[in-house]
């Protein structure tokens, strides 16, 4: 027989209360850890999309807007970058790749991104995760489109179907380019990025589409060909740039140098997507803090439930405490048992909460990926888990102070009388 055994028997004697109280701690810990886990995973998910891009060039108002538009398809970029500028930038440095993109059209509200074939062969939407097709193939000829997984799910389109794009981003009721039907040739696997909402096609098709409109305004009939395209038609809205790196490394000292060089050009805006996403993280950090505060509040409320459970049990345990004191256990030792009981409830709840958060995190990740295409990798940070575990036990110990004081002050002789 030892003190721990006494504590365990006491807990077992109030099994329902113990389980409920411990369960409330478990839920609180699971909630807090899941929030912490999904928070970091959520920001990692934000980092997806910019993928292997080091620098993003556009003519937007600011680098943050450039990233919001170019990576997250928030809006169609308002100002174009000329094809000449693209050529100038491309030849100014031995980039590993420089991929032009053009946004501005849409299909049933899903943004259209016209781009070069390298977008599918060289750019990766997430580091180490190249594009993968669910079916079909990437656009190879003019007027072929490939759908992101969400766009495919949202439109219900299948490979082989023909569609007409709409002028303007996000609008379902804009001017339709009825003259140029596109054929769906591929559907992409989910990437866990905003690209899943996009519809991809080639640049020339988009240029031809808008050249048709221009020529119509100029009174020229007939569909244009590539030969009819002018420099004004050949415009883009973004350039994804990647600099050469050493094998196994994603960074390079030249990135910052090239960033500084490009930003001197007043005609363009250059952004390092990773930095801008970190800025975005800083902006929404306060909201994030509110969720963490809510989690802590739930944890504190579970501490109160421990206090109530122990406090309520003290009335019926006065005689037990008196008997333990009568056989020679000191006040401090009995008080320690009450604290140990609370700590065990807290510890059991916290451990269960850790397991729940892992299971719940993976379940939530599966749902997020399935429902909204957001790829999160719930990862329990051991440091956070240890802090939350220690916090739960400390909170439980704190909650036991009042019941422990009651135990300490329990008058022995009075509680041993038959009528007590």
């Amino acid at each position: 027989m030892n003190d721990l055994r006494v504590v365990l028997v006491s807990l077992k004697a109030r099994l329902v209360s113990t389980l409920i109280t411990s369960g409330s701690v478990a839920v609180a810990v699971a909630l807090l850890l899941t929030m912490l886990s999904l928070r970091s995973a959520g920001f990692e998910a934000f980092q997806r999309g910019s993928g292997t891009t080091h620098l993003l060039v556009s003519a937007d108002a600011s680098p943050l807007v450039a990233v919001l538009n170019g990576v997250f398809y928030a809006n169609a970029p308002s100002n174009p970058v000329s094809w000449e500028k693209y050529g100038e930038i491309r030849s100014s440095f031995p980039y590993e790749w420089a991929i032009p993109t053009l946004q501005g059209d849409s299909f049933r509200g899903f943004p259209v991104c016209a781009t070069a074939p390298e977008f599918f062969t060289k750019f990766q939407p997430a580091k180490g995760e190249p594009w993968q097709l669910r079916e079909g193939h990437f656009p190879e000829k003019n007027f072929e489109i490939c759908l992101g997984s969400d766009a495919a799910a949202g439109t219900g389109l299948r490979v082989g179907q023909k569609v007409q794009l709409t002028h303007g981003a996000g609008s379902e009721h804009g001017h339709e380019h009825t003259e140029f039907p596109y054929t769906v040739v591929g559907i992409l696997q989910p990437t866990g990025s905003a690209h899943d909402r996009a519809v991809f096609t080639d640049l020339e098709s988009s240029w031809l589409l808008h050249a048709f409109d221009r020529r119509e305004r100029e009174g020229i009939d007939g569909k244009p060909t590539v030969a009819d395209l002018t420099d004004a038609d050949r415009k883009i809205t973004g350039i994804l740039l990647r600099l050469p790196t050493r094998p196994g490394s994603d960074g390079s000292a030249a990135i910052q140098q090239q960033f500084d060089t490009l930003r001197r050009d007043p005609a363009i805006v250059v952004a390092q997507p990773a930095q801008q996403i970190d800025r975005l993280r800083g902006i929404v950090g306060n909201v994030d803090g509110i969720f963490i505060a809510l989690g802590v509040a739930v944890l504190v409320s579970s501490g109160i439930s421990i206090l109530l459970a122990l406090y309520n049990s003290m009335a019926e345990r006065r005689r037990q405490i008196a008997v333990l004191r009568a056989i020679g256990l000191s006040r401090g030792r009995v008080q320690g048992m009450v604290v140990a009981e609370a700590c065990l409830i807290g510890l059991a709840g916290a451990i269960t909460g850790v397991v729940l958060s892992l299971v719940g995190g993976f379940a939530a990740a599966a749902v997020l990926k399935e429902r909204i295409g957001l790829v999160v990798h719930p990862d329990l940070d051991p440091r956070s888990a240890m802090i939350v575990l220690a916090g739960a036990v400390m909170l439980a110990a704190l909650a036991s102070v009042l019941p422990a004081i009651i135990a300490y002050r329990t008058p022995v002789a009075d509680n041993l009388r038959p009528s007590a």
Partner: protein
Amino acid sequence: MTQVLSLRDVQFRRSHGFALRVPSLDLAAGEMALLSGGSGSGKSTLLWLIAGLLRADGGSIEVAGQRLDAMREGDRDRVRARSIGLVFQTHHLLPDFTAEENVALALMAAGEPERTHMPRARELLASLGIDRPGARASDLSVGQQQRVAVARAIACRPALVLADEPTASLDTDSAHAAMEVIQKACRDAGAALLCASHDPAMQARFPRVIDVRGFATSEVPA
């Protein structure tokens, strides 16, 4: 003969005016004495004073050669754990613990090595006729519960056993049988027994009867 209990001019006063003064009371090793007196005469109070569960307002209380009245509470707890066994009217077993665990608790409190707890508890329970040492205390009959309570009281081979109305709720035959169990256990353990009982029928079982009514007073100074 060695004294296991020695009280000198012990004074105790409760807030509601009840007071107790014990000019002198001694108990030799192995001696058995009955504290007699009606309800409210101070029998239980005197036992709790001797056990160190109540603090006397004056005088000296010596148990097994140790002055309880001069000790701090923690030291009194240790003396109680090692030298005093307690038997209560309602047994006061912990209902969620098994019979052997109830006995082992006393050994734990006395600081006996943990490995000895269960063997000693089972041995004692067997000697008192308890054949289900692993049964929860609440599942035992009243008679069995009392035997377990006696086993707990003598588990640490105390010098003194204090019994507070151990037969109060029993009929005459059962009371004698129960008292026989307590007295035999104390004899076997070599412990002195000071038993409080208002039952006149119990007086014949004890070689010495101390009438507590002689100790009750209202003149103990504050």
